[in-house]
């Protein structure tokens, strides 16, 4: 085993990113509902600080951060490692979680004398557990450690779906759990085969050891299918719309923006770092086809939804599709590694801008639901007059989903489109364009209602604090701001990649 992880001076930040939220979870379980919101908000702030510190260390050092846990070298022990892409994911996670925390604070803060605090306490515990699980996924280097991280993610995400305890959300949560369990079991099976073949679970070591053989192909196929079930790519998306639409707004926002990105990130690592070139090429083509079908099919489904939150949920499946068409486009070549291609940058930007835009959209939808007591699109005529900020947040986030300048989504889709044309994938280029048009369709359907003249004067059933709307607007604005990045491969995303062998290259 040639690769050796060495703890870098600021590697302990990775431990903090994973463990701080765990400490807070224990503290809330021990202390009960009273201080839940306060502990959680403090931890989310600390998490943001750690994330920014990690990003700054990455920029300053120009190399990946590593940490060998307990001093036990892999393959016996476990290492953590953050490269540029992981760093970007961690910062994105911390930002979105922080914003959602601010949004949820008024909803899930314990009012004196109100309720027993079931939903409140549970929400904060689960949100923090999500933070830990996501960070563990982004910095994990060990396939089994990643399995535990994925399970942590599942156990945090599923109860979030049925926090309000209605039968339909419990049903959605159960279905989600079964899909997620099946997914993690398949992933685990692949892990076992890889260990049997190579005697290590360390990704860095595997990137140097892996070669074409039947056990590895079977393992990768199982793991990728399992992760697809968790990422809700067509045709394994059936669990997502009811789960994401049924959850309380802040939960929907994190589920759609962050939770499904973790399996996508792992698929990327498996295909790029572990799969031998031939297998990577085949897998990439198949993933791209599924991604394209996802984009088209679920965009059409989104257009046909009568309820706002269901529409946004279907839009999530469609937007996830874009992340899978990156695989053949970012295949790279002998002198151009995948992470220097424009498609790599485009994919990463799509991931981040979707996270910001989708969380903004779900939060805005949550405000609408809160204000009117329903989210039937047909009955929302003129809601922009009463909730201008939310309508604006929805519209700005929509820009990013459609890929209209200036927005992060525009830069992402533009890069992907250029890559598709340059690499000779006209059908992917056509899919990207069609997906943008369809997204325009479903976003304008809502914006049109927002700006329409209401037939009868529109009444807000419940006043919604302005603060909540501003959080949604800030997230949407951040998604737009990403659009001012230059249209070229982004160096931050390449930090620490060259250390990984070129296993994924032809």
């Amino acid at each position, binding site marked *: 085993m040639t690769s050796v992880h060495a703890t870098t001076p600021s590697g302990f930040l990775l431990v903090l990113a994973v463990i701080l939220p765990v400490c807070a979870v224990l503290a809330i379980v021990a202390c009960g509902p009273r201080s839940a919101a306060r502990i959680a908000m403090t931890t989310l702030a600390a998490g943001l600080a750690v994330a920014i510190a990690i990003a700054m260390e990455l920029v300053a050092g120009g190399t990946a951060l590593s940490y060998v846990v307990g001093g036990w070298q892999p393959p016996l022990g476990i290492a953590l490692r953050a490269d540029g892409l992981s760093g970007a994911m961690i910062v994105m996670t911390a930002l979105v979680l922080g914003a959602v925390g601010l949004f949820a604070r008024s909803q899930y803060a314990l009012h004196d004398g109100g309720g027993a605090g079931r939903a409140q306490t549970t929400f904060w515990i689960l949100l923090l557990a999500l933070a830990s699980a996501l960070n563990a996924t982004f910095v994990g280097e060990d396939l089994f450690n990643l399995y535990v991280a994925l399970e942590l993610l599942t156990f945090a995400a599923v*109860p979030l779906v049925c926090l309000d305890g209605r039968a339909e959300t419990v049903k959605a949560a159960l279905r989600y759990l079964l899909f997620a369990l099946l997914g993690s079991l398949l992933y685990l099976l692949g892990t076992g085969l890889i260990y049997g073949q190579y005697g290590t679970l360390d990704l860095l070591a595997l990137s140097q050891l892996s070669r074409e053989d039947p056990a590895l192909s079977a393992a990768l196929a199982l793991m990728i299918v399992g992760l697809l079930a968790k990422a809700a790519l067509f045709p394994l998306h059936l669990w997502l719309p009811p789960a994401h639409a049924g959850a309380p707004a802040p939960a929907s926002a994190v589920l759609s923006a962050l939770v499904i990105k973790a399996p996508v990130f792992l698929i990327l690592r498996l295909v790029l770092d572990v799969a031998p070139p031939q297998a990577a090429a085949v897998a990439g083509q198949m993933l791209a086809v599924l991604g394209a079908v996802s984009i088209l099919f679920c965009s059409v489904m989104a257009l046909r939804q009568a309820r706002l939150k269901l529409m946004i949920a279907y839009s999530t499946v469609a937007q996830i599709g874009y992340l899978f068409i990156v695989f053949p486009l970012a295949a790279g070549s002998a002198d151009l590694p995948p992470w220097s291609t424009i498609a790599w940058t485009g994919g990463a930007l799509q991931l981040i801008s979707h996270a910001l835009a989708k969380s903004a959209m779900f939060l805005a939808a949550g405000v609408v639901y*809160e204000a009117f007591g329903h989210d039937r699109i047909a009955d929302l005529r003129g809601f922009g007059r009463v909730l201008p900020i939310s309508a604006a947040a929805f519209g700005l986030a929509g820009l990013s989903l459609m890929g209209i300048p200036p927005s992060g989504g525009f830069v992402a889709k533009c890069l992907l489109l250029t890559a598709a044309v340059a690499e000779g994938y006209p059908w992917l280029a056509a899919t990207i364009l069609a997906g943008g048009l369809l997204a325009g369709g479903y976003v304008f359907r809502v914006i049109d209602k927002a700006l329409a003249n209401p037939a009868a004067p529109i009444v807000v059933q419940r006043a919604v604090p302005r603060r909540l709307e501003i959080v949604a607007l800030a997230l949407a604005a951040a998604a737009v701001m990403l659009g001012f990045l230059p249209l070229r491969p982004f160096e931050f995303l390449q930090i620490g990649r060259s250390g990984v062998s070129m296993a994924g290259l032809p």
Partner: protein
Amino acid sequence: MTAVLQPGVLFGLCGAVLVGIGLFAIVTHPALLRRIVGCNILGAGIFLVFGAVARRGAGAGLDADPVPQALVITGIVVAFSASALAVALLKRLSELSVGEGRAAEPAAPRSET
């Protein structure tokens, strides 16, 4: 032929068959409780594959490689927690949809969407 009869291979193959049986139950069984049972059979099959891998890795005075064995122990506990959560959701769902049972008053004031 004798190689197949080594416990490290034989029970690995058993695990492979259990995976198929479990998957069949998960996909085809109409009752959700039986699907949860199917998940457990699938899990048992997967753990057996790990066990076979561990047994094959005997060496250094140990009868088996302890690393996959430890992974299985972790896996069994996680699988149990998952079954517990799934069963609790299933029970709650049936209470809510039937609308009977002592604890089935519709989950008090909804905590909003």
